[in-house]
């Protein structure tokens, strides 16, 4: 992973805006007063202890979770209960899950072409061409006709990334994409993600892969107890954390 030059994103338009977003699970305040602006092409890494609300935060962006107060604006559309709105946003936002969530009853190729055919009404032949070119990009075109259960975890996660990219999303959300993988497979997935970042995709990544954060992120966000405690560009974030909680967390995951 090559180091990248810091970029000036201040003039770039925002694609995701969160304004005082709040959410509770029962009595538990899982997101408290989150304000966040994500610029087009920006790569954000979110880290924090488990239960800090980082997964919930990105799951609110495509409405897998519903926030209870505040506004979330994705690509100019404000999230509401309107199903058409939600489906429109989901077409623009790809998501990769910790447990891959490929459809086990469909071949790899069918997993990739399903959404383009049914959601985007793309002709089948064209969808298959797009799918094959993406499988080439994640370096597993030879697996196209197999079923997910026949692939290794790393291969499945790369398929999941390709599946999300098939919809040509503007934004990609990654929810701990390497946490369920055996150590030797983490790199093959991260390599694909680094490549994707190099192509200018807007990415929000929940991960504890600090090497990835250093190499790719424009901004690292640390969350704890439902709040954004600290955010900074990666060099400063790792070299000089300000908040005590950040220091404690970094100490736990970096030195052992």
């Amino acid at each position, binding site marked *: 992973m090559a180091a990248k030059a810091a970029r000036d994103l201040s003039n770039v338009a925002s694609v995701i805006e969160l304004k005082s977003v709040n959410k509770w699970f029962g009595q538990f305040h899982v997101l408290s007063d989150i304000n966040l602006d994500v610029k087009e092409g920006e790569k954000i890494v979110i880290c924090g202890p488990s239960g800090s609300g980082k997964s919930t935060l990105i799951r609110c962006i*495509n*409405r*897998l979770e519903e926030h209870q107060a505040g506004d979330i604006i994705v690509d100019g559309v404000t999230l509401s209960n309107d*199903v058409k709105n939600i*489906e*429109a946003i*989901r*077409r623009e*936002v*790809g*998501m990769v*899950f910790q*447990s*891959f*969530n*490929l*459809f*086990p*009853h469909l*071949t790899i190729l069918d997993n990739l072409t*399903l*959404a383009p*055919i*049914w*959601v985007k*009404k793309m002709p*089948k032949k064209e969808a298959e061409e797009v799918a094959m070119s993406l499988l080439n990009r994640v370096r597993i075109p030879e697996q196209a006709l*197999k*079923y*997910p*259960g*026949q692939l290794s975890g790393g291969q499945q996660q790369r398929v999941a990334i390709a*599946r*999300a990219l098939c*919809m040509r999303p503007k934004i990609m959300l990654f929810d701990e994409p390497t946490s369920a993988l055996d150590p030797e497979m983490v790199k093959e997935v991260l390599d694909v993600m680094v490549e994707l970042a190099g192509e200018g995709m807007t990415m929000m990544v929940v991960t504890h892969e600090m090497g990835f954060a250093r190499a790719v992120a424009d901004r690292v966000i640390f969350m704890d107890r439902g709040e954004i405690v600290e955010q900074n560009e990666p060099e400063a974030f790792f070299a000089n954390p300000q908040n005590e909680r950040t220091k404690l967390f970094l100490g736990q995951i970096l030195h052992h």
Partner: protein
Amino acid sequence: MSDDALPSGERRQLAPPIDDTGALGWMRRNLFSSWANGITTVVLVVAAGWILSGFLEWALFTATFTAATGTECRGGGACWALIREKWRYIFFGSFPYEQHWRPFFAVIAMLAMLVTSADRRMWNWRLLVIWGVGSFITFLLMFGQIHIPLSLFLTIALVVGGFGMSLRKAIAEAGEMNAYRVLAAIGLVGLVLRIAGVLPAWSLAIAPLSYVETSLWGGIPVTIILATYGLAFAFPYGVLLALGRRSNLPLIKGLCVGFIELIRGVPLISLLIMASVMLPLFLPSGTTIDKFLRAQVAVILFAGAYIAEVIRGGLQSLPKGQFEAADAMGLSYPQKTLLIILPQALRVVIPPLINTFIGFFKDTSLVLIIGIFDFLNTANQALVDPNWAGFPAEVYLFAAFVYFIFCYSMSRYSKYLEVELNKGTRR
């Protein structure tokens, strides 16, 4: 050659140990592995042989295969002459005797329909064709005459057009979509005009044979029709109930839960009696609904509730991630359900689903309570003949054998489906 003769870092692959081969080896391991096991084996073999020899003595060696009446049949063994004498009644009931070829071929048509649609390669538009043609032949043979009212044609046009428009929207070309629109429009306008009385009550009469009403139907075609159409309609209905029960909309959920619990809470017999005795009391005088049809509807409602619960089990077994992945892609609810959720949920529930099917195939015999002559009932009636009194074992054994053939085929089919549908999806 020893391991150190190999290049470093490689180990010889060892062959698995050789199995105890041969029938003797197998017997020693499985039947006579210890004194206690050996004695148990011997005792059980002797007992089984004793029972089997007694049965064969009765069923074959001392049995009577031809006799003019029951009195010639008192040899002590089984009286298979009774079956020989009565088999046509047992199979076809009171259907006019010289016309028995009709239910015979109707059964053949239905079996052909079921066997062809059991093949997974047929699970597409062909299934509709197979069932359309198969059902048409079956009922044409059974009734002898079919009158298809204009409104049915119009309804079919509306349904085909409507479903085509909504389901094929994503993938059909413009010409196909226009065809659906035209069909739906013709159906809708026609039905409105028909209800308004503008169009006459015309019907297409197909009447190559003499008319035989349902009260004369009996035997194996009745059992197969009740079970086949009962389950064929109950299945999609059960799927809808199961989905409804998991709905977020309180009204739909409440209706589905209420229906399932109500139907499951009463015996099928009481539902059949309701359909046959009480329903006519509620209908305006003059209107009658065929008794056979009422029994059929009762079976559908009852089976639907049970199938719904089986399918709900399958829906609950799917990991939450499958729903979320489908949602995250922007699939709509019907797309998510039809493309992702149901195909997986149904695979999981094949064994309990076929179990339910087998149960209902046998439960159709309860229609005898309201005087419909299904296969078990005609077998029962065959015993009533005073000339042949006194041989219930033979008749019930025969009936049991026929039921077993059907149920065992379903069970084997379930096994085939499990293997076929899980091909490649397992690691």
